[in-house]
């Protein structure tokens, strides 16, 4: 048999195993991709998630200062119970919607998710204050502010998530490595 034919017929038997892992390890460090750029791109896409946490923490801070103020605030809320009912129902409804989105897809960290819960630390603090000072208008209006803020944030999160999802669907279908290689 001619050498050319022999090699052609046994081509795969001539192949050795691939290179060791150190080649990729070295290559990875030299990839023409800037890690920093990726972080910035990611932040640009998810800026609003970072903003939520800032807003939540700031809101809790504002409420605390609000409560500590000695000045009387003349806010009259006649239908406190009805108001509470109105907000809690809507908040619970939004939270349910949010929980249907997989955590990974939503990309919110656990601190932010905890802050978004209806009965979180800020809520319990307000509740305690309210129980100790029934009829205190300041605490009541703080509670309302708390509800309003939470509802606005939840709306914003769901809006942004839907908007981003629609964009992603119209642009391109993500390529699954397992499917193509």
């Amino acid at each position, binding site marked *: *048999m*001619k*050498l*050319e034919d*022999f*090699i052609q017929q*046994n*081509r795969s*038997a*001539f*192949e*050795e*195993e*691939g*290179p*060791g892992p*150190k*080649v*990729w390890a*070295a*290559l990875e460090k*030299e*990839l*023409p*991709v*800037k890690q920093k*750029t*990726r972080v910035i791109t990611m932040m640009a896409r998810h800026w609003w998630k970072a903003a939520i946490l800032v807003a939540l923490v700031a809101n809790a801070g504002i409420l605390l200062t609000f409560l500590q103020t000695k000045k009387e605030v003349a806010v009259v809320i006649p239908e406190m119970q009805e108001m509470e009912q109105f907000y809690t129902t809507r908040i619970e409804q939004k939270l349910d919607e949010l929980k249907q989105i997989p955590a990974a897809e939503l990309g919110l960290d656990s601190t932010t998710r905890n802050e978004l819960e209806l009965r979180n630390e800020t809520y319990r603090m307000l509740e305690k204050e309210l129980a100790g000072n029934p009829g205190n208008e300041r605490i009541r209006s703080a509670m309302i502010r708390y509800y309003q803020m939470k509802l606005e944030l939840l709306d914003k999160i769901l809006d942004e998530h839907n908007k981003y999802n629609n964009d992603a669907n119209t642009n391109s279908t993500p*390529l699954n*490595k397992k499917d*193509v*290689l």
Partner: protein
Amino acid sequence: MTLYPDNLENTPVTNQIVVRCRKGDVRAYRELYEAYSKAMYNICLRMTGYSADAEDVLQEAFVQVFKNLDKLATDSSLTAWIKRIVVNHCLSYLRKKKVYFEEVGETEYEEENKVDESEHAMTVSAVKEAIGQLPDGYRTVINLYLFEEYSHREIASLLGISESTVKTQYMRAKERVRQLVKIKTREV
């Protein structure tokens, strides 16, 4: 998983990987490497003869592949392009080792089929070993022709020598392999 050596043509898969690499997708670089590293490492191993050197050359070649991916024309074959970069890196490695690809004075290559090769039972390991024992110059020519499937003309241009020199060296290399295989199979 292997895109090579079965596929010299660009496919939607290779095109997608290139597009994603250009966008800076780290995973795409990894996929590109996984798809080609084995075949390209084998080229390096055949050309250098040493696994440690083969890995070094492979790494250098891939750095160049990754850096120049955006210069690859959309209609040119990704596989052929990567292979050419790898082969060129192997050749500069050999040149650094002072392997010269020189013209031979006379072009006295024998006719093909002059020697009846059918009488010798060849084995993969014997052929591999025989090629490995060739002087660097012969080994390069035989590898580029038989394994990397370049034409005599392409090899001539890669090595910077005339086509007739390539042919002569190839015939001599082949004859040497034949003799070595004969000895090896007799030993067994």
